């Protein structure tokens, strides 16, 4: 008995801490989601303290469910997460295959490639939206201005001038606008997380069965079919890992959304919760419970997929 007691004892602190961490705030959120609870109200001051006498039943859930912003936020959450996953996996595989060879400076290339992964999300967002994407002062604005100047100059040139007269003036894109702010977020997070995918795929490629590959070459398999039938299946498990870890991180994206446009056009669930919570804690909590449900749906798939491979 003693041999089993010690391992239990060693696990207890971690298990208890995580249990408290999960259960206490979550049950409070659940409680708030069923009551009327606001931070400021001159008309109904009794709603500013959480109590069972303010019971609202599923009223908060109904309010959130019928709120257009809620559906917009779910849509944005899914669009942003799926686009990032799609782009990072595709780019990650391509770059990993590209870098998986020996050439001068491989070590430096790896170091340069991984760097974005270590950048603080807030810095990432500030850097991209200001210094790179700003339509006037950023590199985008400068580049568009430069191209326009170049075309303007060429218009006066002999012979080709007539051709360039047909060209329109380019105008820079504002990435803080409602239509484009989600693209800005996708761009900056893809930049940050592609390196992570690359390094994982690279690690995996290095364990690829070389004999199999040589046999395929002898059999006259084309580069494409080598990639399609040997490399890609080999990358199945790492792709699952990349998708899972990124899903964990990107479902709770916040800093980038706040910094790019304060939620205009790219509001996701965490951001909507923050907006509700400026006053209406009840609605914020109900949205939180919806977010938990969404995360669980995603988690069930991902954990199943990864869990199988991990315990071997």
């Amino acid at each position, binding site marked *: 008995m003693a041999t089993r007691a010690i391992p239990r004892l*060693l696990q207890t602190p971690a298990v208890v801490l995580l249990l408290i961490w999960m259960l206490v705030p979550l049950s409070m959120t659940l409680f708030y989601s069923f009551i009327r609870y606001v931070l400021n109200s001159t008309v109904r001051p009794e709603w500013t303290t959480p109590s069972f006498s303010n019971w609202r039943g599923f009223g908060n859930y109904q309010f959130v469910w019928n709120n257009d912003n809620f559906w917009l936020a779910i849509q944005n959450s899914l669009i942003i997460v799926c686009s990032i996953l799609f782009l990072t996996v595709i780019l990650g595989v391509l770059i990993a295959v590209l870098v998986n060879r020996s050439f001068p400076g491989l070590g430096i290339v790896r170091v340069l490639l991984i760097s974005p992964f270590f950048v603080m999300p807030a810095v990432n967002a500030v850097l991209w939206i200001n210094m790179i994407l700003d339509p006037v*002062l950023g590199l985008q604005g400068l580049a568009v201005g430069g191209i326009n100047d170049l075309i303007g100059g060429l218009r006066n040139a002999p012979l080709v001038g007539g051709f360039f007269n047909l060209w329109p003036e380019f105008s820079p894109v504002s990435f803080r606008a409602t239509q484009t702010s989600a693209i800005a977020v996708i761009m900056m997070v893809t930049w940050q997380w592609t390196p992570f995918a690359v390094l*994982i795929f690279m690690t*995996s490629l290095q364990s690829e069965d070389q004999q199999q590959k040589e046999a395929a070459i002898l059999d006259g398999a084309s580069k494409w079919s080598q990639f399609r039938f040997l490399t890609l299946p080999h990358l199945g498990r790492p792709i699952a890992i990349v998708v899972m870890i990124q899903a964990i991180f990107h479902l709770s994206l916040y800093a980038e959304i706040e910094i790019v446009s304060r939620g205009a056009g790219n509001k996701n669930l965490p951001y909507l919760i923050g907006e509700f919570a400026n006053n209406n804690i009840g609605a914020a909590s109900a949205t939180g419970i919806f977010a938990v449900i969404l995360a669980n749906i995603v988690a069930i798939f991902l954990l199943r997929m990864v869990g199988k491979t991990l315990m071997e």
Partner: protein
Amino acid sequence: MAIVAETTKFSKVAWPVLAWIVALVFFFPIFWMVFTSFKTDADAVKPEFLFRFTPTLENYTNMTDNYDYWRFATNSIITSVSATLLCLFVSVPCAYAMAFNPSRGTKDILMWMLSTKMLPAAAVLYPMIFMAKSLGIYDTRFVVILVLTLINLPIAIWMLFTYFKDIPKDIIEAGQMDGLTTWGEVKEILVPLAWGGIASTALLIFIFCWNEAYWTVRLTTFNAATLSTLIEGNRAPEGLFFGRLSAVSTAAVGPIVVLGWFCQKQLVQGLTFGAVK
């Protein structure tokens, strides 16, 4: 090291060149940030000074006046280091027990732990804020350390578990035969053998703590505010001050990026939870 058989002279040159270009493109934003940090605010937005300018260190020397950098940096260092240590203190014994004395429930416990990482922070933020306020620990380093420890605990346990799992059990059993206590096993066998794994777990947790924004920004206002708060709080009105913004950003991410360079391989391997060799 897998080397794809090169067939033509063209591919011998073209692919490495393309690899270099891709790497430089990915690194460019960071380079641009560091580069801009040496320009004055006025020069930074002028196209004529895009590449040619008189470098200046004034953005760095004024960082303390402009941003009160060191207060935030001190908080970041103290909270990240403490949270990392606390996290290891709780997770090492747990992962050790799970790897060497697994019971039937171990897999489920591990899965459950990872699932807590899926819990959206936004869903539990407000109860945490109210609790912290009523306990009088809101905006203290203590609450930041506590939360950073808790949010990283599942990842730490997973990573350590996968490292420990690879240690042959025979060695531990031999130790037990020799009469080692549990503490002795940990000290004499586990730590020396799993040192690399523990170190990379610690580094990764440290990086996550340092970069964490959601919780730290919302659980602090002034006293315990970390570098994430500094950057997030200064973004809008400072839009025109690219020079000083770049300098403070460089100072905020510099240490972590350099740290990451030295241990990229172990970090990434750890994050795959041992499923990618």
